[in-house]
């Protein structure tokens, strides 16, 4: 019937109902349930069948997750694997070999294998193409040496997406290659780095003679820049994917307002309402972006979404402390712990305020995102570059 084809949401509901009829979340073991859900194509709807999806529009993902949540099904604890789900998976899907997709995607989605991102280095932050970590071919393997920094969840990760320099004689963007790195390799040394919240959420990672089989190269040798950009574009779209009104930080601040009539004043009221409108519009912008992107890989447009998300999360968390007043002067705990998730809702307002400062730095700073919008979307002339065409080896550092 033509109607069914034009009704992907209905199709999805029928799939879920059929699955739940034979897989009872109340009695099935959690991991078996999650694996079965993946195998039924009900993990990430936009992925092709065979890899956890049904090739349906990505905008249906929130509906899918809600259907499972309403059935009391266990989730895959997505907050523990943000980089895996938001960045590694779509990149592996786009650039991976059949073997790589088969090997990595399912345990990634179920959360059996957590992923981290070994991109940034002390000398390569905004200028990611400047990475100095070297990968040298040795038969069927690559030998990797270097230092990465700010690596979130390296302490829980089983695998990493890694950008390394394979040819220092080429210009900086051309000499990079993208790898899938086993964090269990004895040459991988993870050292916690404490953040301004008190927690050690990110790490320094030292790579010493780490051996990576060539079969774990993602994309062609020298093609690392293109693959890395696909990862970053996906990251920027994944961020701020709020589906429901008042989900996320705006909801937390709204509850504080509702629960504390004694704290209210007219200025904060006006500011809250202005931010509420902006957060609602950001939610709709995200929805619209995901509808636009239903097909294919996201481009630089996602930068605008991430820019807005970072600004709103910072303004809202700052406002929340001003609203709380005395309570905002207190903090839960400065003890250094290594968290398994980044959880704004599970912490106090002070933590949220501090952690939100990272939102405009991680995954590309807001300044770099503005450059991307200006140059790659609007086509404004680029800054003069002294470093783009000479061999990387000859650049001053």
């Amino acid at each position, binding site marked *: 019937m033509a109607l069914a084809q034009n009704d992907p949401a209905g199709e999805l509901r029928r799939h879920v109902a059929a699955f739940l009829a034979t897989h009872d979340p109340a009695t099935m073991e959690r991991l078996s349930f999650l694996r079965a859900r993946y195998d039924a194509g009900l993990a990430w709807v936009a992925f092709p069948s065979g890899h956890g999806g049904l090739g349906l529009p990505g905008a249906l993902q929130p509906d899918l997750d809600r259907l499972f949540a309403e059935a009391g099904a266990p989730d895959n604890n997505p907050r523990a694997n943000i980089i895996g789900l938001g960045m590694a998976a779509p990149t592996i899907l786009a650039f991976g070999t059949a073997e790589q997709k088969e090997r990595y995607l399912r345990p990634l989605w179920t959360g059996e294998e957590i992923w981290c991102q070994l991109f*940034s280095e002390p000398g*390569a*932050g*905004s*200028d990611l193409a*400047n990475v100095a970590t070297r990968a040298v071919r040795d038969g069927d393997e690559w030998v990797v040496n270097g230092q990465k*920094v*700010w690596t979130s969840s390296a302490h829980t990760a089983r695998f990493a997406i890694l950008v390394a320099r394979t040819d220092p004689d080429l210009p900086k963007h051309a000499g990079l290659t993208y790898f899938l790195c086993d964090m269990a390799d004895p040459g991988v040394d993870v050292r916690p*780095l*404490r*953040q*301004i919240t*008190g927690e050690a959420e990110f790490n320094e990672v030292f790579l010493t003679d780490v051996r990576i089989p060539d079969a774990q190269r993602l994309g062609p040798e020298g093609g690392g820049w293109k693959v890395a950009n696909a990862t970053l574009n996906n990251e920027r779209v994944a961020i701020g994917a709020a589906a429901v009104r008042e989900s996320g930080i705006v909801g937390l601040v709204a509850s504080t307002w509702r629960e504390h009539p004694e704290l209210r*004043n*007219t*200025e*904060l009221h006006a500011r809250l309402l202005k931010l509420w409108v902006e957060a609602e519009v950001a939610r709709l912008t995200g929805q619209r972006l995901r509808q636009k992107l239903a097909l294919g890989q996201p481009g630089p447009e996602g930068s605008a979404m991430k820019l807005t998300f970072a600004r709103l999360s*910072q303004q809202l968390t*700052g406002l929340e*402390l*001003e609203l*709380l*007043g*005395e309570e*905002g*002067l*207190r*903090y*839960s*705990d*400065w003890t*250094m712990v290594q968290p398994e998730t980044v959880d704004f809702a599970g912490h106090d307002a*002070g933590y949220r*305020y*501090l952690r939100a*400062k*990272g939102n*405009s*730095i991680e995954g590309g*700073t*807001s*300044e770099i995102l*503005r*450059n991307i919008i200006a140059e790659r979307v609007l086509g404004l002339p680029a*800054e003069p*570059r*002294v*470093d783009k065409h000479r061999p990387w080896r000859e*650049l*001053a*550092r």
Partner: protein
Amino acid sequence: MTALNLLYTDIEDDLRATLRDLLADLCTPAAVSAVYDGDRSLVAPLWKAVAADLGLAGLLVPEALGGAGASAREAAVVLEELGRASAPVPFLTSAVVATMLLLNAGDDLLPAVASGERTAALAIPLSTAPHALLAAVATDSQQRLTGVVTSVAGAAEADTLLVPASTADRIALYAVPVASASVAPVVSLDMTRQLADVTLDYAQGRLVLADAEPAIRAALRAAAALLASEQLGVSRWCLETTVAYLKERRQFGRPVGGFQALKHRLADLYTGIESAAAAARYAAAALAAGDLDLPVAASVAKAFCGDLAVLAAEEAIQLHGGIGMTWEYPAHLYLKRAKADQLALGTPAEHRAQLAELVDLTMRAPGA
């Protein structure tokens, strides 16, 4: 009306230089950072050096009473430097707020507090705006005090608490030795001005002021006026440190500070800080001169400098990139101090609301 001097005098510059040297020696970022992990070994020796050795505890106290006979202008310079170093000393709470109250009462405790031998604190939540409802504990006929005051700054470093207590028709102020109270330090957003919850259970008080509300409000207003100078000091550290970093940090084969987008940000911040300096100096000068415009000056300064310091600290973190988010780098000390200072003694929103009354810009129709 001659305009108040908004610049620094030579004496003020000398005072700044002396204090800055001392803080550079004693108040290192590593030692400051340690207070967040419960190591407060910096606090007592630093306070002794500032209060007693440099004699700054008695800055506002006349020489005849054992003080330095200086004015709020010098106290403001001290606060600029303490903010610039994120120093964890109870200068604002003891040498400004408590001292002003003791001065007002002509209390016998004054010489000991002025010499730095004793340290006092007003038992009131740090968030209290000068014009807000005042928290007060209960008192009985034998001057015994009972109640809880939350989020008190300076209590953990004090040996004497000045406690507002309700009497039949007014608020009185009592002195209570900390030994008679229970002072429970709380984990604070800004551990360089750590708060404590104070519990009094039939604690014996000594009457300092029978009708204390005007004096308490004046002391809080003075503190708000002067906190603006601390916020200025915090802002200056943030700008200077960020400018220095961006001159060194290279990406894309060039110093990052050369990108115009960042130059404009820093130029804007500089502009804001110059404005903050004017507002903070005006508040300090108005306080020193006993100027009638003080209520306006204090609220303008606290509102403007409070927001500006937060902006400066937020820009510092952002423009440092990843390193700004680390515990190891001192920028976070300033973010926490700036944000807590913004909430202290009335938020900018509370001060703007108060200004609406002071300068006749309320929402009410005329005559309503």
